[in-house]
Protein backbone atom coordinates (compact mmCIF):
# COMPACT_ATOMS: atom_id res chain seq x y z
CA UNK A 1 0.00 0.00 0.00
CA UNK A 2 2.76 2.42 0.83
CA UNK A 3 4.20 1.78 -2.63
CA UNK A 4 1.00 2.98 -4.24
CA UNK A 5 0.96 6.04 -2.07
CA UNK A 6 4.60 6.85 -3.00
CA UNK A 7 3.70 6.28 -6.61
CA UNK A 8 0.74 8.64 -6.48
CA UNK A 9 2.66 11.40 -4.74
CA UNK A 10 5.44 10.82 -7.29
CA UNK A 11 2.96 11.33 -10.12
CA UNK A 12 1.77 14.49 -8.43
CA UNK A 13 5.30 15.86 -7.98
CA UNK A 14 6.05 14.80 -11.53
CA UNK A 15 2.97 16.66 -12.76
CA UNK A 16 4.48 19.85 -11.42
CA UNK A 17 7.79 19.07 -13.12
CA UNK A 18 5.85 18.42 -16.30
CA UNK A 19 4.11 21.80 -16.15
CA UNK A 20 7.47 23.53 -15.74
CA UNK A 21 9.13 21.32 -18.34
CA UNK A 22 6.49 22.34 -20.88
CA UNK A 23 7.75 25.91 -20.62
CA UNK A 24 11.36 24.82 -21.14
CA UNK A 25 10.58 22.56 -24.04
CA UNK A 26 8.22 24.92 -25.86
CA UNK A 27 10.64 27.82 -25.61
CA UNK A 28 13.50 25.59 -26.71
CA UNK A 29 11.50 24.22 -29.63
CA UNK A 30 10.28 27.58 -30.86
CA UNK A 31 12.88 30.16 -29.83
CA UNK A 32 15.79 27.65 -29.92
CA UNK A 33 17.11 28.74 -26.55
CA UNK A 34 17.34 27.44 -23.00
CA UNK A 35 15.51 29.87 -20.78
CA UNK A 36 17.28 29.23 -17.50
CA UNK A 37 15.25 31.96 -15.83
CA UNK A 38 12.14 29.82 -16.28
CA UNK A 39 12.50 28.21 -12.84
CA UNK A 40 12.53 31.61 -11.19
CA UNK A 41 9.29 32.57 -12.88
CA UNK A 42 7.75 29.79 -10.77
CA UNK A 43 9.06 31.52 -7.66
CA UNK A 44 7.65 34.86 -8.82
CA UNK A 45 4.29 33.20 -9.42
CA UNK A 46 4.40 31.73 -5.94
CA UNK A 47 5.22 35.09 -4.36
CA UNK A 48 2.49 36.92 -6.24
CA UNK A 49 -0.10 34.39 -5.10
CA UNK A 50 1.37 34.48 -1.57
CA UNK A 51 1.12 38.27 -1.44
CA UNK A 52 -2.34 38.34 -2.93
CA UNK A 53 -3.68 35.74 -0.55
CA UNK A 54 -1.87 36.47 2.71
CA UNK A 55 -1.15 40.18 2.54
CA UNK A 56 -4.00 41.42 0.38
CA UNK A 57 -6.53 38.82 1.59
CA UNK A 58 -7.80 38.09 -1.91
CA UNK A 59 -9.78 34.95 -2.74
CA UNK A 60 -7.82 31.95 -4.02
CA UNK A 61 -9.05 32.07 -7.61
CA UNK A 62 -8.25 35.75 -7.96
CA UNK A 63 -4.83 35.27 -6.39
CA UNK A 64 -3.97 32.49 -8.82
CA UNK A 65 -5.23 34.55 -11.72
CA UNK A 66 -3.05 37.45 -10.60
CA UNK A 67 -0.06 35.11 -10.38
CA UNK A 68 -0.68 33.88 -13.92
CA UNK A 69 -1.13 37.38 -15.32
CA UNK A 70 1.99 38.72 -13.63
CA UNK A 71 4.07 35.75 -14.81
CA UNK A 72 2.73 36.00 -18.35
CA UNK A 73 3.65 39.67 -18.53
CA UNK A 74 7.01 38.93 -16.89
CA UNK A 75 7.82 36.12 -19.33
CA UNK A 76 6.91 38.17 -22.39
CA UNK A 77 8.83 41.17 -21.05
CA UNK A 78 11.96 39.12 -20.31
CA UNK A 79 11.83 37.81 -23.86
CA UNK A 80 11.39 41.28 -25.37
CA UNK A 81 14.09 42.99 -23.33
CA UNK A 82 16.68 40.29 -22.72
CA UNK A 83 16.38 37.66 -25.44
CA UNK A 84 14.94 39.29 -28.53
CA UNK A 85 17.95 41.55 -29.12
CA UNK A 86 20.04 38.36 -29.10
CA UNK A 87 17.93 36.53 -31.71
CA UNK A 88 20.95 36.12 -33.97
CA UNK A 89 23.64 35.97 -31.29
CA UNK A 90 25.57 32.86 -30.33
CA UNK A 91 23.74 30.35 -28.12
CA UNK A 92 26.35 30.94 -25.40
CA UNK A 93 25.53 34.66 -25.14
CA UNK A 94 21.85 33.79 -24.85
CA UNK A 95 22.53 31.19 -22.17
CA UNK A 96 24.63 33.62 -20.12
CA UNK A 97 21.89 36.24 -20.43
CA UNK A 98 19.30 33.74 -19.24
CA UNK A 99 21.43 32.90 -16.19
CA UNK A 100 21.76 36.63 -15.54
CA UNK A 101 17.98 37.07 -15.69
CA UNK A 102 17.63 34.16 -13.28
CA UNK A 103 19.93 35.84 -10.72
CA UNK A 104 18.15 39.15 -11.23
CA UNK A 105 14.77 37.61 -10.38
CA UNK A 106 16.19 35.80 -7.34
CA UNK A 107 17.84 38.94 -6.02
CA UNK A 108 14.76 41.05 -6.58
CA UNK A 109 12.80 38.52 -4.54
CA UNK A 110 15.46 38.63 -1.81
CA UNK A 111 15.22 42.40 -1.78
CA UNK A 112 11.44 42.46 -1.52
CA UNK A 113 10.70 39.41 0.62
CA UNK A 114 13.95 38.90 2.52
CA UNK A 115 15.98 35.74 2.78
CA UNK A 116 13.91 33.74 5.24
CA UNK A 117 11.23 31.34 4.06
CA UNK A 118 7.62 32.34 4.38
CA UNK A 119 4.82 29.95 5.11
CA UNK A 120 2.64 29.47 2.07
CA UNK A 121 -0.99 28.84 2.78
CA UNK A 122 -2.17 26.01 0.56
CA UNK A 123 -4.66 27.03 -2.12
CA UNK A 124 -6.35 23.64 -1.88
CA UNK A 125 -9.25 23.27 0.49
CA UNK A 126 -10.14 19.73 -0.58
CA UNK A 127 -9.89 17.29 2.36
CA UNK A 128 -7.58 14.27 2.02
CA UNK A 129 -9.20 11.11 0.69
CA UNK A 130 -8.77 8.02 2.84
CA UNK A 131 -8.86 4.98 0.61
CA UNK A 132 -7.61 2.49 3.21
CA UNK A 133 -6.08 2.93 6.67
CA UNK A 134 -2.62 3.49 5.21
CA UNK A 135 -3.46 4.89 1.80
CA UNK A 136 -4.38 8.54 2.11
CA UNK A 137 -4.26 10.91 -0.83
CA UNK A 138 -3.99 14.58 0.02
CA UNK A 139 -6.20 17.20 -1.57
CA UNK A 140 -3.10 18.86 -3.01
CA UNK A 141 -2.13 15.65 -4.79
CA UNK A 142 -5.55 15.26 -6.35
CA UNK A 143 -5.82 18.89 -7.41
CA UNK A 144 -2.30 18.84 -8.84
CA UNK A 145 -2.89 15.76 -10.95
CA UNK A 146 -6.28 16.91 -12.21
CA UNK A 147 -5.03 20.40 -13.00
CA UNK A 148 -2.08 19.01 -14.92
CA UNK A 149 -4.21 16.60 -16.92
CA UNK A 150 -6.64 19.38 -17.84
CA UNK A 151 -3.79 21.69 -18.86
CA UNK A 152 -2.11 19.01 -20.95
CA UNK A 153 -5.29 18.12 -22.80
CA UNK A 154 -6.01 21.81 -23.35
CA UNK A 155 -2.50 22.54 -24.56
CA UNK A 156 -2.50 19.55 -26.91
CA UNK A 157 -5.80 20.67 -28.41
CA UNK A 158 -4.52 24.23 -28.68
CA UNK A 159 -1.36 23.15 -30.50
CA UNK A 160 -3.06 20.74 -32.88
CA UNK A 161 -6.38 22.44 -33.53
CA UNK A 162 -5.76 26.18 -33.59
CA UNK A 163 -3.91 28.43 -36.00
CA UNK A 164 -1.56 29.92 -33.40
CA UNK A 165 -0.80 26.35 -32.29
CA UNK A 166 0.01 25.29 -35.85
CA UNK A 167 2.14 28.40 -36.22
CA UNK A 168 4.10 27.30 -33.14
CA UNK A 169 4.76 23.89 -34.68
CA UNK A 170 5.76 25.50 -37.98
CA UNK A 171 8.15 27.96 -36.33
CA UNK A 172 9.69 25.21 -34.24
CA UNK A 173 10.46 23.19 -37.34
CA UNK A 174 11.58 25.93 -39.74
CA UNK A 175 11.39 29.57 -38.74
CA UNK A 176 12.05 30.86 -42.26
CA UNK A 177 9.51 28.60 -43.94
CA UNK A 178 6.94 29.55 -41.28
CA UNK A 179 7.56 33.20 -42.08
CA UNK A 180 6.97 32.45 -45.76
CA UNK A 181 3.53 31.11 -44.77
CA UNK A 182 2.77 34.50 -43.23
CA UNK A 183 3.43 33.46 -39.64
CA UNK A 184 4.54 36.33 -37.40
CA UNK A 185 7.60 34.70 -35.86
CA UNK A 186 8.16 37.31 -33.13
CA UNK A 187 4.51 37.13 -32.16
CA UNK A 188 4.67 33.34 -32.01
CA UNK A 189 7.76 33.46 -29.78
CA UNK A 190 6.02 35.94 -27.46
CA UNK A 191 2.99 33.67 -27.29
CA UNK A 192 5.22 30.75 -26.37
CA UNK A 193 6.80 32.68 -23.53
CA UNK A 194 3.35 33.79 -22.39
CA UNK A 195 1.99 30.24 -22.25
CA UNK A 196 5.13 28.83 -20.65
CA UNK A 197 5.15 31.52 -17.97
CA UNK A 198 1.45 31.16 -17.19
CA UNK A 199 2.02 27.43 -16.72
CA UNK A 200 5.02 28.22 -14.52
CA UNK A 201 2.75 30.31 -12.28
CA UNK A 202 0.33 27.41 -11.95
CA UNK A 203 3.24 25.08 -11.21
CA UNK A 204 4.53 27.54 -8.60
CA UNK A 205 1.21 27.64 -6.77
CA UNK A 206 0.86 23.86 -6.81
CA UNK A 207 4.45 23.38 -5.68
CA UNK A 208 4.15 25.86 -2.82
CA UNK A 209 0.86 24.26 -1.77
CA UNK A 210 2.50 20.83 -1.70
CA UNK A 211 5.59 21.99 0.22
CA UNK A 212 4.05 24.98 2.02
CA UNK A 213 7.03 27.29 2.03
CA UNK A 214 8.39 29.92 -0.30
CA UNK A 215 11.65 31.84 -0.60
CA UNK A 216 13.71 33.42 -3.35
CA UNK A 217 15.26 30.06 -4.30
CA UNK A 218 12.04 28.08 -4.42
CA UNK A 219 12.13 27.87 -8.20
CA UNK A 220 15.74 26.84 -8.55
CA UNK A 221 15.76 23.11 -7.90
CA UNK A 222 12.35 22.37 -9.45
CA UNK A 223 13.51 24.42 -12.44
CA UNK A 224 16.61 22.29 -12.87
CA UNK A 225 14.62 19.08 -12.38
CA UNK A 226 12.04 20.20 -14.92
CA UNK A 227 14.82 21.01 -17.34
CA UNK A 228 16.11 17.47 -16.83
CA UNK A 229 12.58 16.20 -17.38
CA UNK A 230 12.41 18.13 -20.65
CA UNK A 231 15.73 16.68 -21.83
CA UNK A 232 14.68 13.26 -20.56
CA UNK A 233 11.49 13.36 -22.61
CA UNK A 234 13.26 14.85 -25.63
CA UNK A 235 13.75 18.60 -25.56
CA UNK A 236 11.44 20.37 -27.96
CA UNK A 237 8.79 17.66 -27.69
CA UNK A 238 5.62 18.59 -25.83
CA UNK A 239 4.42 15.05 -25.08
CA UNK A 240 8.04 14.32 -24.17
CA UNK A 241 8.01 17.01 -21.48
CA UNK A 242 4.79 15.59 -20.06
CA UNK A 243 6.09 12.03 -19.92
CA UNK A 244 9.55 13.11 -18.78
CA UNK A 245 8.17 15.22 -15.94
CA UNK A 246 5.88 12.52 -14.58
CA UNK A 247 8.57 9.83 -14.85
CA UNK A 248 11.08 12.04 -13.09
CA UNK A 249 8.68 12.71 -10.22
CA UNK A 250 8.04 8.99 -9.83
CA UNK A 251 11.75 8.13 -9.94
CA UNK A 252 12.55 10.84 -7.42
CA UNK A 253 9.81 9.87 -5.01
CA UNK A 254 10.44 6.13 -5.15
CA UNK A 255 14.18 6.54 -4.69
CA UNK A 256 13.58 8.87 -1.79
CA UNK A 257 11.30 6.28 -0.23
CA UNK A 258 13.23 3.10 -0.92
CA UNK A 259 16.86 4.07 -1.43
CA UNK A 260 17.82 7.25 0.33
CA UNK A 261 16.28 10.65 0.75
CA UNK A 262 19.70 12.26 0.54
CA UNK A 263 20.55 10.47 -2.67
CA UNK A 264 17.25 10.98 -4.47
CA UNK A 265 18.43 14.08 -6.34
CA UNK A 266 21.68 12.38 -7.27
CA UNK A 267 19.69 9.43 -8.59
CA UNK A 268 17.58 11.76 -10.70
CA UNK A 269 20.72 13.25 -12.25
CA UNK A 270 22.23 9.80 -12.73
CA UNK A 271 19.11 8.68 -14.59
CA UNK A 272 19.44 11.65 -16.89
CA UNK A 273 23.08 10.88 -17.65
CA UNK A 274 22.20 7.27 -18.31
CA UNK A 275 19.38 8.37 -20.59
CA UNK A 276 21.65 10.68 -22.52
CA UNK A 277 24.13 7.86 -22.99
CA UNK A 278 21.52 5.43 -24.26
CA UNK A 279 19.35 7.82 -26.27
CA UNK A 280 20.85 11.31 -26.57
CA UNK A 281 17.67 12.78 -28.00
CA UNK A 282 15.49 11.74 -25.04
CA UNK A 283 12.45 9.48 -25.02
CA UNK A 284 10.45 11.23 -27.72
CA UNK A 285 13.17 13.44 -29.11
CA UNK A 286 14.00 13.47 -32.75
CA UNK A 287 17.25 14.24 -34.41
CA UNK A 288 17.87 17.95 -34.40
CA UNK A 289 18.35 19.17 -37.90
CA UNK A 290 20.14 22.33 -36.91
CA UNK A 291 20.03 24.89 -39.68
CA UNK A 292 23.31 26.23 -40.96
Amino acid at each position, binding site marked *: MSFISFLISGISLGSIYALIALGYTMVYGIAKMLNFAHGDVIMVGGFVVFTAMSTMQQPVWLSILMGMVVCTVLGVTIEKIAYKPLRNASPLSVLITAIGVSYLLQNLALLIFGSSSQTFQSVVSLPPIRITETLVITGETIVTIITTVVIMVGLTLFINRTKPGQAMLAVSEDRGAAQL*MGVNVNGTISLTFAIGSALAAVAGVLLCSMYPQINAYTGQMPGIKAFIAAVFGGIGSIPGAMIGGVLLGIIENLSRAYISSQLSDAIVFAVLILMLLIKPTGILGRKLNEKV
Partner: protein
Amino acid sequence: MAMLQIENLEVSYGMIRAIKGISFEVNEGEIVTLIGANGAGKTTILHTITGLVAAKAGSIQFEGKELTKTPPHKIVAMGMAHVPEGRRVFSQLSVLKNLQLGAYTRKDRDGIQKDLEMVYQRFPRLEERKNQLAGTLSGGEQQMLAMGRALMSHPKIILMDEPSMGLSPILVSEIFDIIKSINEAGTTVLLVEQNAKKALSIAHRGYVLETGKIVLSGPAQELMDNDSIKKAYLGE
Protein backbone atom coordinates in the same frame (compact mmCIF):
# COMPACT_ATOMS: atom_id res chain seq x y z
CA MET B 1 4.18 49.72 -64.10
CA ALA B 2 5.41 46.19 -63.61
CA MET B 3 3.86 43.95 -60.99
CA LEU B 4 7.23 43.39 -59.34
CA GLN B 5 9.85 46.05 -59.85
CA ILE B 6 13.34 45.68 -58.42
CA GLU B 7 15.72 48.58 -58.57
CA ASN B 8 19.41 48.83 -57.72
CA LEU B 9 19.10 46.10 -55.17
CA GLU B 10 22.17 45.40 -53.04
CA VAL B 11 22.47 42.64 -50.46
CA SER B 12 25.42 41.71 -48.27
CA TYR B 13 26.15 38.93 -45.83
CA GLY B 14 28.56 40.69 -43.49
CA MET B 15 31.55 41.51 -45.70
CA ILE B 16 30.34 39.41 -48.61
CA ARG B 17 28.55 41.40 -51.27
CA ALA B 18 26.13 38.86 -52.66
CA ILE B 19 23.97 41.19 -54.82
CA LYS B 20 25.76 44.16 -56.30
CA GLY B 21 23.05 46.46 -57.55
CA ILE B 22 20.57 44.76 -59.83
CA SER B 23 17.34 45.89 -61.44
CA PHE B 24 14.69 43.81 -63.12
CA GLU B 25 10.96 43.53 -63.38
CA VAL B 26 8.21 40.97 -63.67
CA ASN B 27 5.00 41.91 -65.46
CA GLU B 28 1.61 40.50 -64.63
CA GLY B 29 0.99 37.19 -66.36
CA GLU B 30 4.62 36.49 -67.19
CA ILE B 31 6.99 33.69 -66.37
CA VAL B 32 10.32 35.36 -65.80
CA THR B 33 13.38 33.29 -65.08
CA LEU B 34 16.60 34.17 -63.34
CA ILE B 35 19.35 31.81 -64.38
CA GLY B 36 22.87 31.57 -63.07
CA ALA B 37 25.50 29.23 -61.70
CA ASN B 38 25.98 28.17 -58.08
CA GLY B 39 26.51 31.13 -55.82
CA ALA B 40 25.39 33.69 -58.40
CA GLY B 41 22.91 35.10 -55.90
CA LYS B 42 19.59 33.70 -57.13
CA THR B 43 18.36 32.49 -53.76
CA THR B 44 19.54 35.68 -52.10
CA ILE B 45 17.36 37.73 -54.45
CA LEU B 46 14.25 35.69 -53.70
CA HIS B 47 14.97 35.75 -49.97
CA THR B 48 15.33 39.51 -50.08
CA ILE B 49 12.05 39.92 -51.96
CA THR B 50 10.10 37.95 -49.35
CA GLY B 51 11.95 39.45 -46.42
CA LEU B 52 13.99 36.51 -45.14
CA VAL B 53 17.10 38.57 -45.82
CA ALA B 54 17.33 42.35 -45.46
CA ALA B 55 18.27 44.54 -48.41
CA LYS B 56 21.22 46.84 -47.97
CA ALA B 57 20.15 49.29 -50.64
CA GLY B 58 17.65 49.61 -53.45
CA SER B 59 13.94 49.05 -53.68
CA ILE B 60 11.53 46.19 -54.26
CA GLN B 61 8.07 47.31 -55.31
CA PHE B 62 5.19 44.86 -55.50
CA GLU B 63 2.09 46.41 -57.04
CA GLY B 64 3.47 49.77 -56.04
CA LYS B 65 4.15 48.85 -52.40
CA GLU B 66 7.66 48.88 -50.99
CA LEU B 67 8.49 45.38 -49.73
CA THR B 68 11.77 46.32 -48.07
CA LYS B 69 9.71 48.27 -45.55
CA THR B 70 7.02 45.63 -45.09
CA PRO B 71 7.18 43.14 -42.19
CA PRO B 72 7.94 39.78 -43.84
CA HIS B 73 4.87 38.00 -42.45
CA LYS B 74 2.60 40.55 -44.16
CA ILE B 75 3.98 39.86 -47.63
CA VAL B 76 2.04 36.61 -48.21
CA ALA B 77 -1.27 38.32 -47.59
CA MET B 78 -0.36 40.85 -50.29
CA GLY B 79 -0.44 38.01 -52.82
CA MET B 80 3.12 36.74 -53.00
CA ALA B 81 4.09 33.13 -52.35
CA HIS B 82 7.59 31.68 -52.24
CA VAL B 83 8.51 28.06 -52.90
CA PRO B 84 11.90 27.99 -51.20
CA GLU B 85 15.05 26.23 -52.28
CA GLY B 86 15.16 22.70 -50.91
CA ARG B 87 11.33 22.69 -50.52
CA ARG B 88 11.36 23.19 -46.75
CA VAL B 89 8.09 21.39 -46.15
CA PHE B 90 7.16 20.90 -42.49
CA SER B 91 8.31 17.32 -42.25
CA GLN B 92 6.74 16.61 -38.85
CA LEU B 93 3.30 17.71 -40.01
CA SER B 94 0.89 15.92 -42.30
CA VAL B 95 0.52 16.84 -45.95
CA LEU B 96 -2.88 18.36 -45.23
CA LYS B 97 -1.54 20.47 -42.36
CA ASN B 98 1.25 21.71 -44.59
CA LEU B 99 -1.33 22.78 -47.15
CA GLN B 100 -3.43 24.45 -44.45
CA LEU B 101 -0.38 26.38 -43.28
CA GLY B 102 -0.09 27.64 -46.85
CA ALA B 103 -3.45 29.32 -46.30
CA TYR B 104 -2.38 30.63 -42.89
CA THR B 105 -3.19 34.28 -43.58
CA ARG B 106 -6.56 33.59 -45.20
CA LYS B 107 -9.93 33.68 -43.50
CA ASP B 108 -12.26 32.79 -46.38
CA ARG B 109 -13.11 29.18 -45.55
CA ASP B 110 -14.91 28.51 -48.82
CA GLY B 111 -12.06 29.92 -50.87
CA ILE B 112 -9.55 27.83 -48.94
CA GLN B 113 -11.61 24.70 -49.51
CA LYS B 114 -11.86 25.47 -53.23
CA ASP B 115 -8.13 26.00 -53.49
CA LEU B 116 -7.48 22.77 -51.60
CA GLU B 117 -9.56 20.92 -54.18
CA MET B 118 -7.68 22.72 -56.95
CA VAL B 119 -4.34 21.68 -55.43
CA TYR B 120 -5.52 18.07 -55.08
CA GLN B 121 -6.67 18.12 -58.68
CA ARG B 122 -3.31 19.41 -59.80
CA PHE B 123 -1.39 17.02 -57.56
CA PRO B 124 -3.54 13.90 -57.05
CA ARG B 125 -0.70 12.25 -55.14
CA LEU B 126 -1.00 14.84 -52.38
CA GLU B 127 -4.61 13.90 -51.83
CA GLU B 128 -3.74 10.21 -51.63
CA ARG B 129 -1.12 11.04 -49.01
CA LYS B 130 -2.90 13.84 -47.19
CA ASN B 131 -2.58 12.24 -43.76
CA GLN B 132 1.01 11.13 -44.23
CA LEU B 133 3.82 13.10 -42.57
CA ALA B 134 5.43 15.38 -45.14
CA GLY B 135 8.88 14.13 -44.16
CA THR B 136 8.01 10.67 -45.46
CA LEU B 137 7.22 11.91 -48.99
CA SER B 138 9.67 11.38 -51.84
CA GLY B 139 11.66 14.34 -53.14
CA GLY B 140 9.31 14.87 -56.07
CA GLU B 141 6.25 14.66 -53.87
CA GLN B 142 7.79 17.15 -51.46
CA GLN B 143 8.33 19.54 -54.34
CA MET B 144 4.68 19.15 -55.30
CA LEU B 145 3.71 19.77 -51.70
CA ALA B 146 5.85 22.91 -51.54
CA MET B 147 4.16 24.16 -54.72
CA GLY B 148 0.71 23.18 -53.49
CA ARG B 149 1.38 24.91 -50.20
CA ALA B 150 2.31 28.10 -52.05
CA LEU B 151 -0.86 27.87 -54.18
CA MET B 152 -2.94 27.64 -51.02
CA SER B 153 -2.29 31.30 -50.30
CA HIS B 154 -4.00 32.09 -53.62
CA PRO B 155 -1.05 34.20 -54.78
CA LYS B 156 -0.86 36.68 -57.61
CA ILE B 157 2.81 35.84 -58.02
CA ILE B 158 4.82 32.76 -57.06
CA LEU B 159 8.57 32.84 -56.59
CA MET B 160 10.10 29.42 -57.19
CA ASP B 161 13.64 28.54 -56.24
CA GLU B 162 15.09 25.63 -58.24
CA PRO B 163 11.99 23.46 -58.27
CA SER B 164 13.79 20.89 -60.44
CA MET B 165 16.68 20.36 -58.04
CA GLY B 166 17.44 16.71 -57.39
CA LEU B 167 14.58 15.32 -59.46
CA SER B 168 14.68 12.68 -62.17
CA PRO B 169 14.41 13.94 -65.77
CA ILE B 170 10.81 12.72 -66.11
CA LEU B 171 9.78 14.50 -62.93
CA VAL B 172 11.63 17.63 -64.00
CA SER B 173 9.53 17.77 -67.15
CA GLU B 174 6.39 17.16 -65.15
CA ILE B 175 7.23 19.98 -62.72
CA PHE B 176 7.91 22.42 -65.56
CA ASP B 177 4.61 21.47 -67.21
CA ILE B 178 2.88 22.22 -63.94
CA ILE B 179 4.60 25.58 -63.60
CA LYS B 180 3.46 26.43 -67.09
CA SER B 181 -0.12 25.46 -66.36
CA ILE B 182 -0.11 27.41 -63.07
CA ASN B 183 0.95 30.42 -65.09
CA GLU B 184 -1.68 29.79 -67.75
CA ALA B 185 -4.28 29.69 -64.98
CA GLY B 186 -3.38 33.30 -64.22
CA THR B 187 -0.52 33.30 -61.71
CA THR B 188 2.63 35.26 -62.46
CA VAL B 189 5.84 33.30 -61.92
CA LEU B 190 9.39 34.31 -61.03
CA LEU B 191 11.44 31.18 -61.59
CA VAL B 192 15.00 30.73 -60.39
CA GLU B 193 16.81 27.86 -62.06
CA GLN B 194 20.14 26.28 -62.79
CA ASN B 195 18.42 24.18 -65.40
CA ALA B 196 18.55 27.05 -67.91
CA LYS B 197 17.33 25.05 -70.86
CA LYS B 198 14.10 23.97 -69.20
CA ALA B 199 13.53 27.31 -67.55
CA LEU B 200 13.95 29.27 -70.78
CA SER B 201 11.70 26.81 -72.62
CA ILE B 202 8.70 27.84 -70.52
CA ALA B 203 9.63 31.43 -69.67
CA HIS B 204 8.63 34.60 -71.49
CA ARG B 205 11.72 36.50 -70.47
CA GLY B 206 14.93 35.77 -68.65
CA TYR B 207 17.82 37.40 -66.81
CA VAL B 208 21.28 35.93 -66.53
CA LEU B 209 22.97 36.44 -63.20
CA GLU B 210 26.71 36.20 -62.59
CA THR B 211 28.20 36.81 -59.14
CA GLY B 212 25.56 39.26 -58.03
CA LYS B 213 25.12 41.15 -61.28
CA ILE B 214 22.76 40.80 -64.23
CA VAL B 215 24.90 40.30 -67.31
CA LEU B 216 22.25 39.60 -69.93
CA SER B 217 18.52 39.84 -70.29
CA GLY B 218 15.87 39.48 -72.94
CA PRO B 219 13.04 37.37 -74.31
CA ALA B 220 13.57 33.69 -73.50
CA GLN B 221 13.87 32.68 -77.13
CA GLU B 222 16.57 35.30 -77.71
CA LEU B 223 18.57 34.09 -74.74
CA MET B 224 18.28 30.50 -75.94
CA ASP B 225 19.75 31.56 -79.29
CA ASN B 226 22.58 33.55 -77.70
CA ASP B 227 25.94 31.89 -78.38
CA SER B 228 27.58 32.70 -75.05
CA ILE B 229 24.56 31.41 -73.15
CA LYS B 230 24.49 28.29 -75.25
CA LYS B 231 28.08 27.64 -74.27
CA ALA B 232 27.88 28.58 -70.61
CA TYR B 233 24.42 27.39 -69.58
CA LEU B 234 22.86 25.18 -72.21
CA GLY B 235 25.79 22.81 -72.71
CA GLU B 236 25.84 23.13 -76.46
